[in-house]
């Protein structure tokens, strides 16, 4: 809705309102005396903060000539890619050393500075206000129904076992009605809140789809890595955060370079390099075993960090290139919305895959690894003097147990060992 709101109320006014609302809500989140108050102010913070990304991106894309947009987007994307990686580390440090309230208070001086800068340097382009006409209430209603139902469905899906739950089925139906109705409505409305006409541009349509997939993979892997480190490898939150740092650092260092290259090299080639590098790094991590040291993560995490730099900036540049400036706000809103939807789908799918694949592997191991299988018994004996029973009694966390076993066995043998731990120690 940001594009429509900006054209209705003015971009500068909307940006000021968003920054002021976000900053004030952050302050009250810090002061919150109870959980309900904290949730209430978090909702206000989210509602005000939702417009910041598309607004800032649209302003940057319009403010710079085409050959400079790559560099401008590189600095913009630094915040988008690096902040989610540095945030947990900084937040953990603030919480450990001061209080969780400072995680919110830290937004206040930055927000006040942003208000002054917005007031001084942002101006509405003349064409923007000409658009403000009627309000498409049906469009707003269908958008809220569709996106709201979809988000709750993705969030609760795994917990409620997806479509075996009536609640999830109801949400799915509501999401289809809401989003399907929204598309029909916006194609026919005289003054739509979302101009779907931007999908006529081939690069924009494909780029938006690719950005959805990037959100899917980026957030899916961002959820997965801390889980792997903390649950299976037994790292503390701080240790996991520090181990993930090379990813953010590589993006931070690489993005200005990518911004420079975007104007000189075919952006699609940079994109291809980014996708290949990130895919290679994911494949590299997929070959890790439980015996992996934290230093073994540094290089495989540096590669996707640099790869994301190669993806974000050129993808934004190529996708938005054909969009006329009066549709830029609308185009950036949809682009960012699709990345967020991709992220929600990615997180939900990764969680579901984890549960379903776990069950599958346990079934396969349980079928083949048992005391009657001579090969399994021989492998178990080969694991040496380590006693899984002893490890289990001394270190009750399964992650610790598996990590300890990992010191003794290679990954495939380890899996057999873990299953045999349960089979033999019954």
């Amino acid at each position, binding site marked *: 809705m940001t594009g429509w709101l900006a054209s209705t109320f003015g971009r500068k006014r909307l940006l000021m309102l968003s920054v002021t609302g976000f900053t004030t809500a952050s302050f009250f989140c810090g002061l919150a005396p109870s959980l309900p108050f904290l949730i209430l102010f978090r909702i206000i913070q989210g509602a005000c903060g939702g417009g910041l990304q598309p607004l800032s991106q649209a*302003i940057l894309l*319009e*403010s710079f*000539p*085409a*050959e400079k947009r790559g560099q401008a987007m590189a600095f913009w994307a630094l915040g988008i890619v690096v902040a989610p990686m540095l945030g947990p580390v900084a937040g953990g440090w603030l919480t450990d050393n001061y209080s969780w309230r400072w995680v919110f208070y830290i937004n206040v001086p930055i927000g006040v500075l942003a208000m002054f800068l917005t007031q001084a340097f942002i*101006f509405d*382009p003349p064409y923007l206000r000409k658009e403000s006409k009627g309000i498409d209430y049906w469009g707003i209603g269908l958008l809220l129904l569709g996106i709201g139902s979809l988000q709750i469905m993705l969030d609760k899906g795994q917990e409620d076992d997806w479509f075996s739950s009536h609640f999830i089925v109801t949400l799915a139906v509501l999401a289809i009605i809401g989003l399907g109705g929204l598309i029909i409505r916006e194609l026919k409305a005289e003054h739509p809140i979302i101009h779907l006409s931007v999908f006529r541009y*081939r*690069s924009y349509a*494909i*780029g938006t*789809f*690719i950005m959805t*997939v990037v959100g*899917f*993979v980026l957030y*899916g*892997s961002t959820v*997965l890595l801390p889980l*792997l480190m903390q649950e*299976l490898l037994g790292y503390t939150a701080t240790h996991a955060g520090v181990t993930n740092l090379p990813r953010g650092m590589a993006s931070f260092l690489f993005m200005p370079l990518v911004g420079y290259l975007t*104007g000189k090299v*075919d*952006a*699609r080639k940079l*994109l*291809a390099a980014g*996708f*290949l590098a*990130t*895919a*290679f790094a*994911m*494949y590299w*991590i*997929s*070959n*890790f*075993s*439980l015996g992996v040291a934290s230093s073994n993560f540094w290089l495989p995490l540096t590669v996707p960090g640099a790869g994301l730099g190669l993806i974000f900036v050129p993808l934004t*540049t*190529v*996708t938005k*290139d*054909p969009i006329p*400036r009066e549709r830029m706000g609308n185009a950036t809103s949809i682009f960012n919305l699709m990345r967020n939807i991709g992220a929600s789908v990615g997180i939900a799918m*990764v969680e579901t*895959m*984890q549960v379903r*694949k*776990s069950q599958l*592997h346990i079934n396969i191991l349980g079928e083949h690894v048992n005391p009657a299988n001579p090969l399994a018994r021989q492998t178990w004996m080969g694991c040496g003097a380590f006693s899984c029973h002893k490890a289990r009694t001394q270190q009750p966390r399964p992650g610790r147990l*598996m990590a300890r076993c990992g010191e003794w066995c290679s*990954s495939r043998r*380890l*899996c057999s060992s873990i299953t045999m731990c349960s089979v033999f120690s019954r």
Partner: protein
Amino acid sequence: MLVYNDVFRFLALTFVAMLPLLFLMRKPKKGGAVMAH
């Protein structure tokens, strides 16, 4: 661990599958300054 290996492999394949789509996008223009303010 095998579960994590499977999921990371799936994510890697998803990215590889995007490669042909990249070249269906048009090459961006280098000129054409658009100044808003």
